[in-house]
Every structure is written in C-alpha cells, then in structure tokens.
C-alpha cells in the first residue's frame, strides 16, 4: 500500500474520530470517495501495521503511532495552507485541496523550513491550530538560531501540549513558548520561564482568557497567547 494512501486514510480516521468518537467504514468510504469494501480491506492492513484499532461495525480509532502520523500530516497540511494563502496569495477556498495533495510529498526538513519562514504560525487560514514541531527547543528564536548555525537539535522525546488543553488543577512544566520574543519576554518576566511548573486554574468560555497559577501567583492570559505556551507530560497535583 502506498504511503500516500496510508496517510490519506489516517487523516480521514483522525477527522472522523475527533468528530464522532470513532471512524465507521461507511463514513470513511464517503469521505474518501471509495467503495466500503475496499475501505474494510485497507483498515485491516492498517490494523496489522499497528496504526489503528479496528473492530468491525464499531469503527476504527487511531493508536499512539497512528496519531503521531496524523499529527505530522496535519501540521504539514496546515503549514502548507498558510504558505499557499499568505505567501502565494491563493484563494482561501482553494488552499485546502492543494495542500491535501502536497502534504504527502514534502519532507520534514521542508516542513520545518516552512515553519521558520512563516514565523511559526499558530493557526491555519481556516482557524485550526497548528501543533508545534517536536524539536527540543525552548522557543522559536532558538530554532531560528539553530537554523543559522546548523546546530544539531535534539528531538523531543515527550509529546507537548498547549496549556489551554489542560483541565483545571492539572499541572505541567513549560517546555516551549511559541511566538514573538516580546511576548516571550513579558511572560518570562512574570515567571513563565522554561521548566517552570504551571497549572490551569480556570478557562473562560468562547476562548476567553485563561487563568493560570505560576510561582504562587495567578495570571490571566489572553487565549491566543496561552495556546502558544506548551507544557510537557501533564500530571495532577498542586504546583
């Protein structure tokens, strides 16, 4: 089975799973414009490869490995969309299909070069979040520096998530802050330096500010800024 086909299926399953909880054969068939019978066949092979868990009639869900592939594809897809819309000035409606075709062919190096050139965008033109890369850097400035000096950068071994995805009372350590250095500066002056423990106190509806607890003080942070603060391996407990 071609890599491109694998990726297309994993992407479709990812979308359906986040919408319906699991991806049913008929839904995948409809989504990819193929016959249900051939879907069943591919799902079996994906299950054998360990990318999905598949139970007939209940549908497919991604495994950890499958999710990693989906994350990379989504990241490439959305970065490409930003590139096509903002740099090449393509029509917003067209960029999705275009990116769908390109996402399977670009390398990790191109992906990261795009990210640097576009100043590490946080969202695609349609508003979906772009997850950060898995390089072991503390901020985008570090990545820029590494790009110039060709310094080898270690790969992060743990998955990082934005603090906006923490549930109240959950805590984690700051691993990476994406964005403009002035914002990074303001945040670090208020105690949000790399490795610091933070926990989310409260989130307000409609993407309002997020209240966090850091170094015994509570801060309210604009949602757009907060979703660019990433933490490592959340656990529960008090900061």
């Amino acid at each position, binding site marked *: 089975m071609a890599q491109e086909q694998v990726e297309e299926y994993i992407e479709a399953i990812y979308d359906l799973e986040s919408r319906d909880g699991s991806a049913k054969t008929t839904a995948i068939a409809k989504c990819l414009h193929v016959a249900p019978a051939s879907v069943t066949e591919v799902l079996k092979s994906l299950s054998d490869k360990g990318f999905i868990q598949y139970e007939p009639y209940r549908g497919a869900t991604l495994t950890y490995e499958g999710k990693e592939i989906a994350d990379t594809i989504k990241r490439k897809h959305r970065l490409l969309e930003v590139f096509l819309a903002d740099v090449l000035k393509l029509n917003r409606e067209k960029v999705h299909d275009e990116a769908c075709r390109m996402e399977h062919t670009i390398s990790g190096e191109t992906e990261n070069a795009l990210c640097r050139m576009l100043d590490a965008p946080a969202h695609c033109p349609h508003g979906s979040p772009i997850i950060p890369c898995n390089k072991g*850097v*503390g*901020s985008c*400035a*570090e990545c820029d*520096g*590494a790009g110039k*000096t060709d*310094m080898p950068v270690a790969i992060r071994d743990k998955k990082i998530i934005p603090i906006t995805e923490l549930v109240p009372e959950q805590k984690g350590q700051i691993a990476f802050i994406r964005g403009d*250095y*002035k*914002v*990074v*500066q*303001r*945040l*670090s*002056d*208020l*105690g949000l*330096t*790399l490795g*610091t423990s933070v926990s989310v106190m*409260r989130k*307000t*509806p*409609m*993407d*309002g*500010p997020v*209240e966090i607890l850091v*170094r*015994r*003080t*509570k*801060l*309210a*942070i*604009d949602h*757009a*800024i907060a979703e660019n603060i990433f933490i490592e391996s959340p656990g529960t407990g008090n900061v």
Partner: protein
Amino acid sequence: MKNADYTIALAGNANVGKSVIFNQLTGVDQIIGNWPGKTVERAEGLLLHSGKRIRVIDLPGIYSFSTFSMEELVSRDFIALEHPDAVINVIDASALERNLFFTIQLLELAPPLLIAVNQIDLAEKKGITIDTKKLSALLGVPVVPTIAIRGKGIADLTDAITSLMQDHPVPPVLYYGKEIEERIAKIVPRLSKVTTPYPVRWTAMKLLERDSSIMQVVSEQDLGIVTTAGLLAGEIESIHGEPVCVVMSAERYQIADRVATEVITMRTPGEGLQKKSLTDRLDAVALHPILGYLAVIAVLGGLLVWTFIIGAQVSAFLAEFLSQFEQYEPVITGPLMDILWNGAFTGFTAGVTLVIPYVLPFYLLLAVMEDSGYLTRISVMLDRGMHKLGLHGKAIIPMILGYGCNVPAIYACRIMETPKQKTLAAFLVTLVPCTARTVVILGLVAAFVNIWWALALYAFDILLILVAGRIAFKAVPGESVGLIMEMPDYHVPSLSVVLKQTWTRTKSLIWIVFPAYIIGSAIIQGFYAAGLLNPVNDLLSPVTVLWLGLPAVIGITLIFGIVRKELTILTLAVIFHTTNFGAVMSPVQLIVLALVSMLYIPCISVILVLASEFGWKKALAISATEIVMAIALGGIAFRVLSLVM
C-alpha cells in the same frame, strides 16, 4: 513638593499594597499627576519624620525593567538619574519569587535599598512563613516585615528609611552565571572611558541585554563598546539558543528561586489549607460563565442607573439651586462685566453639576473596584468582546466611565498598557455619549420625535464605536498586546486609600474643568455681546443650512455646545423664544441636530484633557476627525431621513 530635605521612592510589583504604604507614610497632602510628557500616573506625598521633610514618590507598579513600557522607563530613570535618598521595595510575602525577581533588578541599579515584606499575615494564612532576617542577610539590604493595611511595621519602616537616608549604603552585587559574568567583566573596564549617569556594572549588563536606550547613550561616545557588547550578547544567545533578555530573566529567576527556598518555611497543608480560600470562592462566582456576566451586568448597570437616574437628578437639583444666584442668559445685554460674570457663573455651575453628581461617585466606585481586586475580574470577563475594538478587557472601564463624563474616562485610559491602546481607548471614549449629550438627545428627539428615534441614535452610536474602533486600530500606529495580567487576591478595600485616591484624582480634574468652563463661557458671552456671533452663523451657513438642512441660528448653538453640550438646548430655547422645538423644527432636523451634537468634538474640557494626556497634536486630530465625521454623517442622515420621513 517644595523644600523637601530628602526624596525617597516606593517601587514594586502591582497589587503588593504599595499604595497603602504610601498612604501610611504620607499625609493628606498628596499630588497625583502625570510624569512629564507621559501617560503614566505619578503620585507624590510628604512624610514628616523627626523634623525632616521627606518627599515620597510612589513609582508605578511594575514587574521588570526589561519590557520598556513607559511605566518601566519612568521608574528606572527616576531611580538612576534623580538619585533618591532611599528606595523602598515593597514586596508581597505570598509571591516571593516573582517579587524578588524585581528586587534583583533594583539591586542592579544600586540605589540605597530597603525591602518591606508586606502582607505577611496573608502569607501566614496560606502557610508561608518568611525568615526576614535571613532574607536581609542573603541580599545584604535591610528588610522590614509589614502589614500595611493595619499599620503594622510602619514605624520600623520609617526608622529604617531614616538610617538609610543618612548612610546611603550601596547594596552588594549579585552575581549571575559564569558565562554572563565573564562577559560583563569584559565590558566593564572599557566603560571607564565613557560617562553615563548610570552605574557602570548596570550599564554593562544593559549593553549585554541590547537595551536600545543605553546602547544609544554609549554609542554616542564609543561605538566600539556597543559593537563588542553585541558580539558578546550573540555568544550568550548561541550558547542558550534564546534571546539574551530571556536568558537574563531566567538567570534572575534562578537567583530569586534560590533565595526564596532558603527563607520560606512552608507549613504542611493542614486544616487551614484544605478549604478553599475566600478568593477562590468569590472567583467561582465572579468568573463563572453565567453568574460572572450577571455580576458584570449588575455593576455596569448600576453605573448607568446612577448616571441616568440619580446623577441626573442631583445634577438638576444643583443647577436649580445655583440658578437662584444667577440665570444663564445667552442673549444678555448690558455692561461688559455683567456679561462676562454671567458667562463665568454659568461655567461654574457647569463644573459643579459635573463634578459632584458624576465625577466623585465614579472615582469612588473605581477606587473601590481597583482596590478590592474586582476590576481585574471584569477585565477578564469582557476581554473577548473588547477584542472587537482592538482593545482588551481593561478598556471597558474608561468606556463605562464615559457614559457619565468623558473627562475622568480619558484619565482612566492610563490603565491600558501600550501608548497605542491608550490613544485608541481615549478616542473611543470621546464617542461615548456622556450625560450632557444624553440631555440633548432626550430633549430634542425623545421629547419631540419619539423615544424610539432617541434609542436608535444610541444604537447607532454603539455601532459607530465598533466601526471606528476597528478603523482606528488599523490607523493608529504602534503595537497592541494581548491580556497578560496578574489576578490579585480579593481584599476589603482600605477606606483611607479609597478616599484619598478619589479626592486627589478629583482635585486634579477640578483644575482643568473649572477654568475651562468659566473662561470658555465668559469668552463666548463676550463674543455674543460684541455682535460676533451673527457673522459666525453666516460663515457656518454653508455647512449648517445647505449640507445639514438646519436653521442658520444652529451655528451659534453648536459653538455654545463646545463649552458644554447641554447649552445647545438652552441657547436654542432662548433664540426661538420657545421650548416647544417640535413647532420650530421638523423631526428630521431635530434628529440631525441631535446626531451632530452627539458626535462633533466632545467639549472644551475633553479637548484640554486629551491635550494634557496625549499632547495637542493628538487632541486636535481626534477633534478634527470627529467634526468631519459628525458633519458627514449629519448630512447623509438629513438626506436619507428626508426620503423616509
């Protein structure tokens, strides 16, 4: 303050009780004004201690010296250039690490420093005990524990200040990591050839941090040092892979963390800690998705109710009372002195009926909300909505104040962070219909057309604020930052702080409003008596008659309205010899006049306040924009409404 023997400054983070200590140290005689040329509040008071007159400056509450906001530059230059005899760093015992981060930056500036660890009682409640003696030993500066709100430790603080002022001790140097110190050591010797008003080690560090204003000062004398420092900064950046400022922040936090760990004893979570704190319980309501908005609506609604019902009645009562002494007569004749007196007295009435019913209660409520910590919660709840205006949550405060009177509302724009946000908020405030403009809308439209058209004008105004906000956000240069704000614990506001804040703010307002009203009214009366207003009417008639479709005499009334908007109606009544405006003007004319009055330059006091806060250029630009907008929209409204009505 004149004749002060010494000058001391209070510095520290916001919400640490700095203003309470300021009030404890100084008497009633405070001056609240602006730092020269800056939209930053400056509070100054006098402390009399053992026969010495000590000037106390309350520096703005800041968290660092590295983001280059106006508040930070003002504070840093005051400490470095004015050489205060003592700097008191007020720190919050409950958040020692973050407060010490700022202390470390103060130590770099090397003034005679003293630390007041405030709110130790609240920290104790959270299970945090601080060894102040050890803190003093570690940092090498005197440390005094205080509970300012109850006056505890203030006497010790005053004694410590006195000895500091006499000895002027230089605090010890704190050392950073090896790679930073090595590079500071390379810059320091080269700085001996350069003269700056700043301490040498500090200058070296700032050069290393690429501080643009210090780079400017040094490069004028020796460009080579700046270049070298830049290269050294680059080395640090390639070691850490992060901007040098961020590296320095991390270094300082490392020291702060180390010191904090040594001096803090945490009580094991016992009985007291298990139950939720008062702040958490209040926030469960104040920041609740439904209850929180209800609370905001209750507070803001209360303000509006006050404005329209209670404030308006008190204002009417005061006007009535004062009119016993002198009646406003727009077509007065007689000796010049009488005419001027009539104008001046009208101005005085205008001032009294503004300050007592509207300004004082607003300032009082603002001080209570600010001091209790509720203001930050309102900002959080409304942050999303204010994004539509290119502003964030805090901007709701000036906007609401604007419904009462634009003047205090413009002062309130100081709470915004960047110059751009301050200007933008002030511009939008001037579009908010204040009580005076409400009187015009009600008196012309609600009374003689119908209430729905009056409400439609209000709705249109809100729409206009939204549109103008978006356009101005694009047009005004500068940067705008998202909300990053500390959420302090709630506490019962200190009565003396609230009253003093209200009084000093009102006092500084009176000095602008009263002269403007009194002199402005007198001059206009004088103009009228001199027969200059009819030529003015003729001059304005192309705009008023041809474009706006209004009677020619409206020219006068619009000019009177510059002094105070409700004079428009009074003047109109006298000119037409009737208060039944429905008989002399068509509904379309009434609506157009109300619309134009609502939008064209706010009034003379607002222009003066804009000028004092933002400079004449911006004040005139805002006024001109609004005149053009009012005339343009008025003319369009005249044509559109003529078709439908």
